[in-house]
């Protein structure tokens, strides 16, 4: 068994706003082992980024309320003081963000920004050593000529190179966990593949675990071991990559899968799209949160409390009331898009 790094138990995050209380994350639980890649998939506003940022304490604020636990090496990250979290951030757990164009400070050299993170967690490391390590890291992420590029400013890097530099920055202190929040969304498709490949390779080299947040199932299909599908602050389905792609149980997951053009299935008349919009996180629908948009909803879906967790196979759980047999038939139709014309 690989070492258990992270255990999130029933995490809830609420933000008080002028319009009411936003339930950004509503009871999320999962685990992460060393060497594992966990893909978190969902629409914008499904709570995937908030879940990740909360682990690092980046969502803390006067208007935020937290419940549940984030166990990391025997410590609950939710309860840690700001000082203790600071020594974990960028050191044991590091994070890279969506837009590499704006995620680097424009007025400092790339090398200096890497060195800054190094020196924050390694007392006694001098500027010279930090710079040398910066060059090494830039080489590791595939930046050509790292000896001279280390002194470039971010605007002198292309988008893909900047994201590589961000990864170098995140890996600077050999983190146990790398959280990548939509790392490829702002990049060209060809660069996306390179970045994902790089994250996969570095995960092995640095012997860490990765949480990959994306709205794109194609991205997680590449490297994720376990996939967690989130909707309206909840995990609607979780399973291995195989289970999610070949035996998805939740209509929302079907919708996501159906919205990707696929070459290995008969050509659909038109690409499937999920009707409607995600619910307001302030006034949640009764019962299943996906019910108002779900074409297969029936009486049971109105029940409160909604289904918490149904385990289909070991490691594969979902939150849908539909009987398994009924599911299989409607599912295949939804994903392949056959009955769209009807």
């Amino acid at each position, binding site marked *: 068994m690989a070492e258990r790094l992270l255990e999130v138990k029933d995490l809830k995050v609420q933000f008080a706003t002028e319009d009411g209380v936003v339930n950004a994350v509503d009871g999320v639980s999962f685990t992460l082992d060393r060497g594992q890649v966990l893909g978190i998939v969902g629409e914008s506003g499904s709570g995937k980024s908030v879940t990740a940022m909360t682990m690092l304490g980046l969502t803390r604020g006067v208007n935020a309320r937290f419940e549940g636990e984030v166990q990391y090496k025997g410590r609950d990250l939710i309860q840690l003081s700001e000082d203790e979290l600071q020594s974990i*951030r960028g050191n044991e757990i590091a994070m890279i963000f969506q837009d590499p164009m704006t995620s680097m400070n424009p*007025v*400092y050299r790339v090398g200096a920004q890497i060195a800054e993170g190094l020196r924050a967690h390694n007392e006694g490391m001098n500027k010279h050593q930090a710079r040398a390590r910066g060059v090494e890291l830039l080489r590791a992420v595939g930046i050509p000529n790292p000896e001279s590029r280390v002194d470039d400013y971010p605007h002198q890097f292309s988008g893909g190179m900047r994201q590589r530099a961000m990864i170098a920055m995140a890996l600077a202190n050999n983190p146990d966990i790398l959280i990548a929040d939509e790392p490829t969304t702002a990049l060209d498709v060809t660069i996306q593949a390179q970045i994902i490949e790089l994250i996969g390779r570095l995960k092995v080299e640095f012997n860490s675990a990765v949480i990959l947040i994306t709205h794109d199932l194609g991205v997680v299909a590449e490297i994720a071991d376990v996939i967690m599908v989130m909707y309206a602050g909840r995990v609607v389905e979780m399973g291995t990559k195989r289970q999610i792609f070949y035996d998805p149980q939740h209509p929302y997951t079907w919708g996501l899968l159906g919205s990707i053009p696929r070459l290995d299935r008969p050509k659909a008349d038109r690409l499937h799209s999920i009707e409607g919009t995600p619910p307001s996180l302030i006034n949640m629908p009764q019962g299943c949160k996906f019910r108002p948009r779900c074409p297969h909803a029936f009486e049971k879906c109105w029940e409160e409390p909604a289904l918490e967790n149904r385990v289909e196979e070991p490691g594969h759980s979902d939150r849908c009331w539909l009987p398994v047999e009924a599911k299989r038939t409607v599912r295949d139709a939804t994903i392949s898009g056959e009955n769209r014309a009807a």
Partner: protein
Amino acid sequence: MVAFIIRRGLGAIIVLAIVSFITFAIFIVIPGGDPAVRMAGKNATDANIENIRETWGFDRPFYVQYGNMMKKVFTADLISYNTQQGVITEIKRGLPATFSLAIGAAVIWLLFGVLVGIISAVMAGRWSDRAITVLALVGISMPVFWLGIIARYYLGPENLGVFPDGQYVPLTENPVEWFYHLLLPWFVLAVLFIGFYGRVLRSNILDAINEDYVRTARAKGLTPRRVLIKHVLRNSLIPIVTLFGLDFAGVVGGGAILTETVFDLKGVGQYAADAVGTLDLPPIMAVTLIGAFFIVFFNALVDFLYAYLDPRIRPS
């Protein structure tokens, strides 16, 4: 670098030429602008006036007059129509007071402005932020001539006697008295800028705090102090540099007319104000040119500093 200096230098010459010409042109069209009539006095004869016109060259075409005046500006031979004193000598006499006032006030307003901006941004939304905001707005709204007179009257010898009653004491003569005499004018002049800079910096900081790179800095595990100083402040102070450069140039170039007059500092601004009161063109021309020069000069300096502070606009 050299190209930059040459380009800005040429630009400066053009700007100064235009400024001087406009100033001169105003005095051709202004009612009562004819200096000969005023110089001749109340009961002058026509012959008297004609005589003055001829000796001073007021009967020549305007472009000749303009050329002569420009020549005299650069040879330091410019003479006031009213007092017959050398203009450049008078300005040189006023410069120490003006510089002392401008530099001291600039240090104070920059220091306090930045402090006010940081405190109100960090405390954003709390009562201390609100209190500072109100104070800043009060500061911005108080005109110098009012605040100056009130301060001079109540804190001066007439009432509390904490501060001397205006006047300028040269630094070389008595540094302690110099400081003591200038303290009140410094603060009176600085109050307006403190409020304004504080407000601008506050909003810059609040914008910068939400930048992605600040989130990155926090995610790196930097201390909040380091995030604030190195990442938030470093970027929000850039626009303050522009403001400061131009405001300082304005004050040095004789823009502190009100403060100088209220506290009777006998600086360049006060000299210019007196000249305007008597429509005395030569001092007005000289002071305008000095002011324009400082503004052009500090503008170039600000551009230069900008390139240093923000690598994105550095020519590669």
